[in-house]
């Protein structure tokens, strides 16, 4: 998209057309304002459909009027302004209004500047421009643009009157607080026939009239001073103007040389330093009142709307594409994870044992281990019996019976309550005193063994009798005697 821009400086019947691309001057032409020239201009502009057109006028037929209206907000305020503007006789064709400031007297009031340009040639040409899709951007006056570029050049006082020569004549503009309140032209014809001193006096009188008008309008008071600023080269016949000013004013000349330093040398002879300042203000896109009617701005506003539509579409498309890229990236990442997890799953061992089978196996293993741990052999019992009986000479072993059986006294059937017993059947070889002693010795020996929990003498045929005996010494005869040895349960290790 090119930043092509045509600026038409209208000064009386002289049209100077500046074609710029950005801040670069491409073509500068000076054309007449007749219909033929305008047609040629139109044909030229049609070669640049993207270029925008701005008109900056310095015409005698420019009208400025400050209207004070009550401050009303919203649509009612706009309607009031429209009514006031409609009542202004110059509000036909090219006109607009802009707010200057707000005052508080008896009521809150807005000061609004009405601007109008009576230029049948220009206003009559605008429909043609619209029909040819020429993108009109701005119609403005040089006086309005003063507020844009003048503060860059000189320190501005509160009240300032700018004087500037042009083809139309001498333009005098009053600015208050860097806002244009008034602008008028003393035509060249009215100044051409008088002498130098008379010209100075005449101009000074006009300045004095502006001063009095401002005081009358209460824009400035007697205590405030007025700055008079001459733009450009001061003509020889007006060199004495500062001495004819009817009031004490600060006189200052802003030379073309200074303006050229600030805004560049004019690239063509028919462009002045002031024109360069105007072009600078146009390029800098200062917000200035636009005199162009809405119908004439339609092409540009439609182009702007289309541009904004494209920008919005591009932004939306970019966002959706970005989200698409993010989603696609997410999908790729997830697919990568999926492949990795599938690989991990394939590499994981696949035990074909379910929990039920596992429980079954664990139960079997536990059962077999418990059986193994509960197995008891008669080795210990036999060894103990041999250890006790071997020294005996009066007794001989008849029978040994080792048994592992459930403890009938135990309430719960479990391994710890299984009882190991050994029945020792012995017979005295010679029933004598030695046999009696050895019997007692044997009993004592068995009872001392820690592996035995209990030792009892079993009497045949006395199953229902818990114990049988006498206070007499043990009677030993040749009948077999039986001892029942109850082994202590094995000590289980506390696994906790």
């Amino acid at each position, binding site marked *: 998209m090119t930043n092509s821009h045509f600026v038409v400086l209208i000064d009386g019947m002289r049209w100077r057309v500046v074609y710029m691309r950005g801040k670069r001057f491409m073509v500068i032409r000076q054309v007449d304002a007749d219909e033929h020239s305008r047609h040629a201009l139109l044909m030229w502009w049609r070669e640049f459909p993207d270029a925008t057109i701005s008109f900056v006028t310095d015409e005698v037929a420019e009208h400025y009027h400050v209207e004070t209206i009550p401050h009303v907000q919203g649509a009612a305020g706009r309607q009031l302004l429209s009514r006031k503007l409609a009542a202004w006789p110059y509000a036909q064709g090219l006109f607009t209004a802009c707010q200057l400031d707000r005052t508080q007297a008896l009521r809150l009031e807005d000061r609004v500047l009405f601007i109008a340009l009576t230029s049948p040639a220009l206003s009559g040409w605008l429909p043609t421009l619209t029909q040819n899709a020429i993108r009109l951007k701005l119609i403005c006056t040089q006086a309005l643009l003063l507020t844009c570029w003048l503060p860059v050049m000189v320190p501005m006082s509160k009240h300032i009157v700018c004087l500037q020569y042009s083809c139309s004549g001498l333009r005098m503009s009053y600015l208050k607080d860097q806002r244009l309140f008034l602008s008028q032209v003393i035509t060249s014809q009215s100044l051409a026939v008088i002498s130098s001193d008379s010209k100075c006096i005449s101009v000074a009188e006009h300045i004095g009239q502006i001063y009095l008008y401002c005081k009358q309008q209460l824009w400035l008071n007697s205590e405030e001073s007025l700055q008079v600023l001459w733009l450009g080269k001061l003509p020889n016949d007006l060199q004495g103007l500062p001495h004819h000013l009817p009031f004490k004013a600060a006189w200052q000349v802003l030379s073309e040389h200074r303006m050229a330093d600030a805004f560049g040398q004019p690239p063509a002879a028919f462009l002045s330093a002031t024109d360069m300042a105007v072009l600078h203000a146009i390029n800098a896109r200062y917000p200035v009142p636009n005199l162009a009617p809405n119908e004439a701005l339609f092409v540009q506003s439609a182009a702007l709307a289309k541009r904004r539509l494209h920008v919005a579409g591009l932004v939306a498309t970019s966002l959706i594409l970005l989200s698409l890229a993010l989603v696609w990236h997410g999908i790729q990442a997830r697919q990568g994870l999926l492949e990795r*997890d599938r690989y991990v799953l394939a590499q994981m061992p696949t035990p074909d044992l379910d929990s039920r089978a596992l429980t079954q196996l664990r139960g079997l293993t536990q059962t077999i281990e418990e059986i193994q741990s509960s197995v008891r052999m008669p080795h210990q019992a036999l060894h103990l019996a041999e250890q006790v009986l071997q020294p005996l000479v009066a007794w001989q072993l008849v029978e040994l019976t080792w048994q592992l059986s459930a403890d009938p006294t135990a309430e719960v059937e479990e391994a710890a309550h299984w009882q190991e017993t050994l029945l020792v059947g012995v017979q005295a070889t010679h029933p004598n005193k030695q046999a009696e002693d050895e019997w007692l010795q044997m009993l004592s020996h068995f009872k001392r063994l820690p592996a035995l929990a209990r030792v009892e003498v079993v009497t045949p045929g006395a199953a229902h009798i818990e114990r049988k005996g006498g206070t007499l010494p043990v009677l030993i005869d040749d009948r077999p005697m039986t001892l029942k040895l109850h082994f202590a349960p094995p000590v289980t290790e506390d696994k906790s």
Partner: protein
Amino acid sequence: MTLKNYWPFLSRALMAWLATLTLLFLGRLSLEHLRSDVQQQLDDVHGKILQRQQQVDSLTRAHSALHMFHQKGLRWQQLGLLSPASADRIERDLVALQQSQSLPHVMYEIGLPVVCAAGACESRWPVLSAEAIPFTMTPLQLRWRVAHEADVLKWLQLLSEYYSGILLVRQCSWKHQQPARQIEVQCGLELFNFPHALPAHFNLSSLQTLP
């Protein structure tokens, strides 16, 4: 200026952008659908991995028991402890043991196996197990005629080792025969078999894949 004035200028661009954005939006929707589909697959695989991990963890926790079972299970299987009781097998084992170890001859009586379902043989069962494992109990009566009481102990020790300790000696009696100076020994044993203790379709070799 109203929207109606702008419509002829903007309509084509507007429609073009609307079409473009609609297509892109549809593409976005389809990609979103694809993403949710992939996410669903990912969740499924995660679920399977978690389930498999839980199985492996469960097996790891039971590792010691299974490891022991894997080590001894094959031996038990060879000895027939995991098969139904067989008198032929016991007889063959006794003969082989006597001949290989030069042990005293033994007379044996192999009783009929008693099938004990869960809890049916509590009085004969030497352990209190949390799991009711069905088993068969085979009574075995052995008789020797030996010169010394301890001669039988080697028999019993070797039998116990041979059957990996899954053999219960219930009772033993030694009777001295005075004239012959010999000892009549009789022992009552019980052999346990677990023919239906293994899970269905269980293969011992599968335990080799355990972590």
